Every structure is written in structure tokens, then in C-alpha cells.
């Protein structure tokens, strides 16, 4: 299967197989005008199977969102057809308006205009806590 190489843009590599559509949604890639290629179940020597997303435009990617979904994803920045930077992600310390609190007693469930803020509480278990009520949310993986 042939997909044109990215000239100036971003490649999201090493996405866990099956997770690309979720990333597509979180990063709001449906709102872009440029070409976006979604490759599912590509062969990977490291992972067996992986997903890849190629974006043919140098957009700003929210690395915190990506790090929260999967810190093992790599972000390749392509300029004039060359890889100029490979970004490795980490679990972000703070998430703003990425996930929302499900605790019915939390103020954010009543007052939707408040920023939904989560703070990393346990990097090993990849857990976050709501900054308002401390209810726990686990990272995706």
C-alpha cells in the first residue's frame, strides 16, 4: 500500500495498534484541511503491529494530550522531506480540559464552564486526580 511521504508535517509513530482513531478524535484532526493518512496495523519489528498517523502540515500538536493517551508514541517532525526532530513523550504533570471528572459530587459536574484539571498522582500506575475533588482517573494504557 503506497501513501505519499510527508514533505512538511508530522508523523505520529508507534501508536498502539487500534488506538489511532482515538488519537484522531482527541487531537481533533477531523478539523484539519490538509491531508491526513491513518495507517492501521502496520508491521513493526518492535511492536508486532502498530498504527501510524501522517499529517501533511506543520500543525501544533498538543503533546500533553498525546502523552496522556500513550507516552510511548513518537512524534516525528518532517521538514522538506527530512526528519528534523523526533520527540519522545512523557506523562504530563497536568491535563487541562482533556478528560472530565465523573464524580457526581464534584463541582465540575455541576458547573461545566470550569476548566477540567487533572494532576498526575502516581506515574507508575499512570493515575491522575481531579484538582477539585481528587477523584482518580487512570491513563489509557
Amino acid at each position, binding site marked *: 500500500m503506497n501513501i505519499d511521504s510527508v514533505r512538511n508535517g508530522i508523523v505520529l509513530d508507534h501508536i498502539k495498534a487500534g488506538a489511532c482513531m482515538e488519537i484522531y478524535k482527541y487531537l481533533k484532526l477531523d478539523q484539519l484541511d490538509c491531508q491526513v493518512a491513518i495507517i492501521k496495523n502496520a508491521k513493526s519489528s518492535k511492536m508486532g503491529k502498530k498504527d501510524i498517523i501522517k499529517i501533511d502540515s506543520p500543525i501544533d500538536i498538543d503533546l500533553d494530550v498525546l502523552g496522556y493517551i500513550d507516552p510511548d508514541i513518537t512524534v516525528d517532525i518532517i521538514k522538506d522531506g527530512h526528519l528534523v526532530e523526533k520527540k519522545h513523550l512523557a506523562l504530563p504533570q497536568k491535563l487541562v480540559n482533556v478528560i472530565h471528572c465523573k464524580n457526581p459530587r464534584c463541582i*465540575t459536574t455541576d458547573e461545566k464552564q470550569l476548566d477540567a484539571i487533572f494532576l498526575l498522582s502516581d506515574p507508575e500506575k499512570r493515575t491522575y486526580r481531579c484538582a477539585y475533588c481528587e477523584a482518580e482517573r487512570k491513563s489509557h494504557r
Partner: protein
Amino acid sequence: MRHLIDITDLTVEEIDQLIATAEDIMENPAKYQDVAAHKQLATLFFEPSTRTRLSFESAMLGLGGSVLGFSSAASSSTAKGETVTDTVRTVSCYADIIAMRHPKEGAPFAASRRSQVPIINAGDGGHNHPTQTLTDLLTIHRERGSLNNFTIGFCGDLKFGRTVHSLVNALSRYTGIHFVFIAPEELKMPAYINEALRRKGLPYEETESLEDAMPRLDILYMTRVQKERFFNEADYIRLKDTYVLDPAKLQSAKADLCILHPLPRVNEIAVSVDDDPRARYFEQVRCGKFIRMALIMKLLDLKA
């Protein structure tokens, strides 16, 4: 500008200073009677309270300041659908400091992000109640002379008891403290609190028997099973009488046990225990006023 939303907003050294100030106010109230002159405290109570609201008001009046506010959501613009942050931004224009109680967890934190004046969390749902914790710490300090090296039992509703969560959190920063959590299965301490103690390497045990734990305790912190925290009334009725402290249960207790309770009680401490010298919960109420005086002074940067 400082707020007090969670007890850990204060360092151990700051808590020690507050306790020292509160004890000095108790000894020399006249020295402090005008330090907050011309300052106003707003008490925004979106949920009913007797002790906490009155102790804040008494504290501010005792410092020579004045007080305004409301004591239920029905008598504020919340009833018209106003958000917490809008209410607080409005009140910031009238008062120098705000003490706020709200049934929703995190409401004071939301308020503090927009307020122009210091916010004190006076209780947010089942979450935190840091000024009760300061009250508890002052009482323990006065009873034992130190905040280190004792065994403390928490009994009753440990799941929804915000005073318990805040106090465990605060005490976990001191040394030599052994925690005993006494609760039925349904009202056990939340896992994240036990996990935090484990991570800090602090010893704790869980039991359902108050009688078994009693002889080891230096402090017994009783709590009420709170009707307002249950969605299901049948669960409340089933659990409300689980632990009742009476003179018979105290027979195996240490002679210098200190019995605390954040109050109000329903029936979990028999009235006949009140005359026992080990019952210190009304002294605890008294401490609440003085530690709040010290806190208001700190947040408004007032000096005697």
C-alpha cells in the same frame, strides 16, 4: 495572596506557628482584640452549619473585625443559578476574606482560582475541612504537648468523613504516629488514603471492632455517620448505629485517653460519657475559635 483549600496548603512549620499564635490568643485575648479592625469576613455557607460558621464569625469579631454573609444556598443568588465563581467574585468586592462551605467537592478550589481575596475552605462536601483539622491539631497539641508519637483511632464513617481524611493527611507529616481505622466494611477508609500512608511507610491497621482497638489508643476520634452523604436512606439507617461509645466500652481505655469528635453528634457518643475527663470534644470546639483567629490573621497578614 494565600488561600486555605487543603490542609497541605500549609507547611508543618506554618501549622506550628498557627498553633503557637492560637495558644497565645487563648492566654492573652486582649492583645488581639483590635488586630482585624475595619476588616470584613464573608461567610458563604451554601450548606447548613452551626459550629463552623459561628466559630468563624466569633473569631473575626474577637479580632475586632466585622462579618457578613449567608447561611444557606436558598438565601443566595445560587438559587437563581449563579455559579460559585461568580458569587465569589462578587463577594470579593465587599469583603477582605471569605470562609466558604459548599456541598460540592472542589467548590472552594474553583472559587480560589477567581477570587480577589483569600478563600478559606470551611468544608466541601465529603472532601476536605482544613479548619476542622487545624482545630483538631491544636486540641491534640494542647492535650498531649506535641503532635508526634501517639496511637490514634478513627471510628465510624471513615469513607465520607472529610474531617478524618484531612486529619490523617495532616498527621501523616509528623513522626511516630500509628493509625487505627475502625469502621464497618461499607464505611472503610478510601483506598487512596491507605495507599498514601503505605507510600510514606506509615503504619496503619484496619478493624471493625472498637473494643479490640480501645486499650491501645492514646486518642480516639469519633465521627458521625452523616445522613447527607448517602444517596440511599436505607443504607444510612442500617449503618448509623454501628458504633456507639459508652462508659462500658471505655473501661478498657487508657487513663489519659483523649476522646475527640468534630460534632455534631447524633448518638455515637452517649451523653453519659460527657462527664468523663477523657471526653475533650467540647474543649475541641473552644479551640476551633482560636485557631481560626490565628488563621485569619495569617491570611490577612495581620500582627498583634
